[in-house]
């Protein structure tokens, strides 16, 4: 099963209903067995290229194409199974309920005979290192395991081209390592060609032998061996948001804050999702100017702890205590506060911004909290304009929040919380999947909040973020029952 050959000649794609081309004038040739990292700023159409090669862009009703894109000389859609695609979101690509069935799904669609299918399933699971019974539930897998499962499902189809679209963006460091290692084994075993899209260069740096940078005006900006491209284009790439190891984002300078006044404490706190206790016996206190980082593997209850401290989930045992300076007459248990009282006390930024967006316009989104507090119209306008400017959202003031890019949505969700100026911010994976530019802005903004005497509690896998902001770190271990 040799690797596939990829060729693009003046290729372009415009999604139906859009004025601009997602990709334009693309010329490139990828030889069988090459391992390519595809880079470029947000919005240059990296995903579109990958989807095009996978043959899943759809027909004329989905959009318009120009030029030619081929896989082994044919249109990709006519070579189903020749290219295998793994996407970013682990949850959205699990297809069936049992591990074995999920891996077999692609083989079935290609009409592979039964015995051959199961032989391939076992082999694929072994290569990606998923040592699980075929009947194992796919629901019970971690993010890294789910991505390896998707990889196995693709591998079982015996593809000549492996297409990865930010497969590690949503994973913890352990999951990232698992997926990269599994990919390496797959390529070594099969000799397949690889095209991977990723913001974080260092993740794939060692695995790829070629880097292609797509330009903002269409076409290829740079193409060559990783070392040369990253040296020549490193600065430009970093400026456009790509994580280049030699050009890391600026780290903030924190004014040193000793022990500020205590704002929120957890006392022997146990937290639960539904009835399932995920973490227990937590003691912590966060004070003005301090940032506590909650780290630990998936399933350790980081997000649940954040949401419980934020007064959104009820503690399973123990208590969350708001100190008088924060409570300001609203009682010492945040869970008992009214929704409106939270606004000026504790702000929460969810992992998925879409879970906390409420309106059809960016400006409206920022006004909601202020209106709930009955802030005067003039004051509202002033605060909103200032926030829009600070977070580079002014040009999007009238856009629909759901249509923003990932980075823009993240900045907006932070802005909605800052509008009502709560002294405590609870952040759940604030930097997940963010490009280096958004990361830098976000960190700079959080730093200035801390310097102004605000407090932050953040659940995160991002070691760089912890280095930049945390005044202390609480490492959570998953409870034994959770692993079962």
């Amino acid at each position, binding site marked *: 099963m040799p690797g596939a050959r990829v060729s693009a000649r003046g290729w372009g794609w415009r999604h139906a209903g859009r004025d601009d081309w997602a990709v334009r004038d693309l010329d490139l040739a990828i030889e069988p067995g090459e391992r390519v990292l595809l880079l470029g700023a947000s919005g240059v159409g990296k995903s579109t290229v990958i*989807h095009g090669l*996978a*043959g*899943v862009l759809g027909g004329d009703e989905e959009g318009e194409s120009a030029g030619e894109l081929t896989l082994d000389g044919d249109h990709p859609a006519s070579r*189903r199974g020749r290219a*295998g*695609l793994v*996407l970013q*979101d682990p*949850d*959205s*690509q*699990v*297809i*069936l*309920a*049992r591990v*074995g*069935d999920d891996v*077999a*799904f*692609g*083989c*079935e*669609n*290609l*009409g*592979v*005979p*039964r015995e051959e*299918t199961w032989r391939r*399933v076992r082999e694929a699971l072994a290569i990606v290192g998923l040592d699980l019974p075929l009947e194992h539930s796919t*629901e019970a897998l971690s993010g890294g395991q789910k991505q390896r499962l*998707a990889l196995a*499902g*693709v591998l079982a*189809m015996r593809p000549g081209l492996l297409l990865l679209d930010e497969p590690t963006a949503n994973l913890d460091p352990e999951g990232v390592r698992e997926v990269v290692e599994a990919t390496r084994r797959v390529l070594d075993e099969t000799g397949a060609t690889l095209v991977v899209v990723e913001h974080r260069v260092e993740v794939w740096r060692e695995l790829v032998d070629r880097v292609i940078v797509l330009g903002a005006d269409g076409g290829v900006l740079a193409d060559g061996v990783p070392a040369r491209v990253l040296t020549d284009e490193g600065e430009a790439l970093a400026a456009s948001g790509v994580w280049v190891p030699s050009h890391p984002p600026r780290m903030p300078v924190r004014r040193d804050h000793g022990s500020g006044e205590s704002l929120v404490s957890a006392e022997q706190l146990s937290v639960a999702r539904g009835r399932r206790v995920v973490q227990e016996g937590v003691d912590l206190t966060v004070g003005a100017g301090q940032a506590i980082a909650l780290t630990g593997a998936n399933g350790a209850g980081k997000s649940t702890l954040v*949401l419980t401290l*934020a007064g*959104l*989930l009820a503690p399973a045992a123990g208590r969350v205590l708001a100190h008088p300076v924060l409570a300001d007459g609203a009682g010492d248990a945040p869970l008992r506060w009214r*929704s*409106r009282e*939270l606004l000026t006390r504790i*702000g*929460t930024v*969810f992992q*998925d911004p*879409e*879970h*906390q*967006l*409420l309106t059809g316009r960016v400006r409206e989104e920022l006004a*909601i*909290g202020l209106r*709930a*507090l009955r802030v005067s119209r003039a004051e509202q306008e002033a605060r909103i304009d200032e926030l829009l400017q600070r977070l580079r959202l002014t040009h999007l003031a009238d856009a629909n929040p*759901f249509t923003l890019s990932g980075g823009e949505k993240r900045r907006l969700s932070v802005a*909605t919380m800052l509008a*009502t100026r709560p002294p405590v911010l609870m952040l759940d994976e604030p930097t997940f999947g963010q490009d280096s530019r958004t990361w830098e802005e976000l960190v700079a903004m959080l730093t200035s909040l801390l310097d102004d005497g605000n407090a932050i509690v953040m659940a995160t896998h991002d070691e760089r973020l912890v280095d930049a902001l945390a005044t202390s770190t609480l490492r959570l271990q998953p409870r034994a029952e959770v692993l079962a």
Partner: protein
Amino acid sequence: MTAVAVRPDRAVATINPVAKLATALLVAGVLVLTIDWVSATVALVLEFALFAFAGVSARTFWLRTLPIWIMAPLAGVTIALYGEASGDTYFEWLFVHVTEGSVTLAIATVLRVLAIGLPAVVLFITIDPTDLADGLAQVAKLPSRFVLGALAGLRLVGLLISDWRSLELGRRARGVSDHGRVRRLPGQAFALLVIAIRRGSKLATAMEARGFGGTTRRSWARASHFGRSEVLLLIIGAAIAATAVAVSVATGHWNFIWARA
């Protein structure tokens, strides 16, 4: 999706889900034709004899069928109080007429709900959704695109439930959840719809990328058999239905539901 609660050593667990579905429909289909207490009682007695062989533990049985045990008497009480009056009147108050006729009807209703509901639950808790999809596509020959699409979509339900909870917490964090819960509902439902469509289209892309919906004739990694035990289950179902009808007709209790005034 519900966990499958069966003892695999018992025969029922391994029977093709299509046969279970057909059997449950067969029994229900016959029992809704009449509304007398004899046919329902006969069916219920025969069914109970068979539950012993179903491989469902007593605890699981009572737990899963609990809603039916609650629903049946409630339906009965309602009919006893407000059902069509005939014969002696036992009790009367405003619209309430408890009569000989309404009580008989109530008893028949309770038995009927149990006779239709209990076997349906017992057969269905031993059904795995994947096996059902295999059966529907391979045995019942329903279009595989439709069946597998629905099966994969079913997986999203769990994700959407947790999305809904997050949306609720999100609204509390945004300071808008103190009043107007009902007024907020359409907005929240719309947000869920947007998220659902996005998840759904990602899933569809993932499935398409694995060759789903192509022109190639699909193979099946799991064989869905329809053999002797499946036929046997159908025969048992038919026998229960037939016995119930026969005894009811013989004792003169049978009455077609549409024959009632």
